[in-house]
């Protein structure tokens, strides 16, 4: 019946004169990883807080798994796991005690939470550390404990607010593997002990994840990405479709001296943007001009006293796309 686990329309939220979320509509399908991408202050966290019902919207509607977040908040919230940016854990409690705490405030009985918690802790790789105090965990392990706590009610919708800030790439990779596994292979296909009330979930229905991040390397792992700026979603699509918007419009330019290349490229009337990437430049050009520029630029650079070692069309990166979109959204 409900095709979308999250269905939000026309969300608005202002704080005083600041419009933090401005007419945001968002739909997330079962089994989808949706990335909300934007800078601090773009409205990502406010959007998430509206979706979980932690904030009251000024306008618009939110339903989660078919339940209205305001009118049927109990049912809606029982489907949600939320890992906030500054999620708290009790450092002097053990891993298992922390999970137990979160499970019990969510109303789970001991017969429910214990087998579940063990399964989840195994899943996130903390199975061997149940008796370790949370304060003694490394950053990556703390994060996994946070994830486990958010999963203990076995939510169908998981919201992760910048979960990998300050975490190194190896740990981040592990974390993402968990998130992707969660979506492609939901936890606990094994039946749980009796008394499992609302756990009737079809196995084919995966968990959905909404994740916020300011980083493109994370965005590129999502199934779909919405780019937020000043409270609005200014673009939304799969990473590959987003990248395709700039096909043929990003050139890689190498040579020396790099300053000369850069200044000359900037001067070209068909060049929209030049960015230095270490030993090379990325040049964004107007549509259908690549042949023209590839022919013209070497002469221009030569005339300015520079040399080119390589000039080619490259596959656009998400970052290129977002920069192009942000610029056009100013108008």
């Amino acid at each position, binding site marked *: 019946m409900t095709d979308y686990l999250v269905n939000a329309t026309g969300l608005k939220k202002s704080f005083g004169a600041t419009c933090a979320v401005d007419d945001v509509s968002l739909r997330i399908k079962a089994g989808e990883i949706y990335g909300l991408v934007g800078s601090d202050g773009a409205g990502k966290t406010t959007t998430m807080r509206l979706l979980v019902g932690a904030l009251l919207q000024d306008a618009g509607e939110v339903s989660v798994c078919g339940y209205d977040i305001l009118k049927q908040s109990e049912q809606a919230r029982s489907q949600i796991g939320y890992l906030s940016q500054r999620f708290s854990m009790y450092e002097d409690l053990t891993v298992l005690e922390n999970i137990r705490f979160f499970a019990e405030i969510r109303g789970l009985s001991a017969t429910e939470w214990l087998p579940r918690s063990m399964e989840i802790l195994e899943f996130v790789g903390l199975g061997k550390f149940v008796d370790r105090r949370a304060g003694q965990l490394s950053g990556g392990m703390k994060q996994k404990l946070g994830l486990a706590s958010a999963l203990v009610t076995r939510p169908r919708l998981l919201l992760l607010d910048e979960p990998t800030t300050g975490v*190194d*790439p190896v740990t981040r990779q592990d974390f993402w593997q968990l998130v992707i596994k969660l979506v492609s292979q939901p936890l606990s296909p094994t039946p749980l002990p009796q008394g499992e009330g609302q756990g009737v979930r079809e196995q084919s229905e995966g968990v959905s994840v909404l994740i916020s991040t300011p980083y493109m390397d994370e965005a590129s792992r999502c199934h779909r990405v919405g780019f937020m700026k000043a409270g609005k979603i200014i673009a939304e699509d799969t990473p590959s479709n987003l990248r395709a918007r700039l096909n043929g419009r990003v050139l890689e330019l190498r040579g020396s001296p790099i300053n000369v290349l850069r200044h000359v490229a900037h001067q070209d009337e068909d060049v929209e943007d030049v*960015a230095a990437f*270490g*030993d090379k430049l990325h040049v964004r050009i107007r549509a259908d001009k690549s042949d023209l520029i590839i022919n013209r630029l070497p002469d221009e650079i030569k005339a300015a006293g520079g040399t080119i070692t390589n000039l080619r069309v490259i596959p656009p990166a998400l970052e290129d796309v977002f920069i192009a979109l942000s610029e056009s959204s100013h108008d």
Partner: protein
Amino acid sequence: MTEPVIVVENLTRLFGNFVAVDHINFEVQAGEVIGYLGPNGSGKTTTIRMLLGLLKPSDGKATVLGYDVFKQSEEIRARVGYMSQKFAIYDDLTTLENLTFYGGVYGINDKARIQHTLELVGLKGHENTLTSSLSTGWRQRLSLGIALVHEPKLLFLDEPTSGVDPTARRAFWDLIYQLAEGGVTILVTTHYMDEAEYCERVAVMRDGKLLAMDTPTKLKESIITGDVWEVYAHPLERGLEILAAMEGVERVGLAGDHLRVISKRVDKDAMQSLLSRESISVEKIERGEPTLEDVFLSLAR
């Protein structure tokens, strides 16, 4: 020929029996932009702290801007700038007041120089803005300004653009390159490949050792010697298991809606037919480009 800005020879630091930094060697030239990467606990911060003269090395040699880190740490500290994401900006002061305050800490009371710094980081016109009302991108510019007010020849940046969007990040890096053109040497530590890709050379540390240091392009060429494939298949998990066990496949990872495979001498058809034989439906298999993250993951494991 000018002398390198940083020369590190067999630099080592022990904490008890633990070798935090293990005989590392490298040089950095004036005006270079260097990225410094490594998992938590790999020795990055210890290295930086030794270079800043905040921590005494246990062994080896290092000079920064020609000064010995063992004996001349005061000289070094007076000539380097440091920008941390956790940098304290006074929210109830204006941008100009913050700059003036930190200038004073370094003994700089010259108003013209403060103004110059303000212009350099593009905050002119925002002198009287309370910093509490600045966006993250602007706050980062102010932090950079504070790190630059004493005109350092060497600048350390710790995850400088965390929390900003790509547009602000690019504007920030334009500024960094402008500084580098002016001869300032820049060392950036980061966990994010978005930032690392901007650096001219990238160093990767693990377990106290410097594993590699080169341009992003050369790192990709030399470390990722196999082919990169993006495999869109269903179910993904099972596909991962099968490909991970396939001969010639070096690494498989889940990447959202597809698998990222790094392999040697494995062609597309071989993967396709193996997956089909195991009743995995294959939507498409495409070539991918190696990323710095691939490099990092191959080195860090």
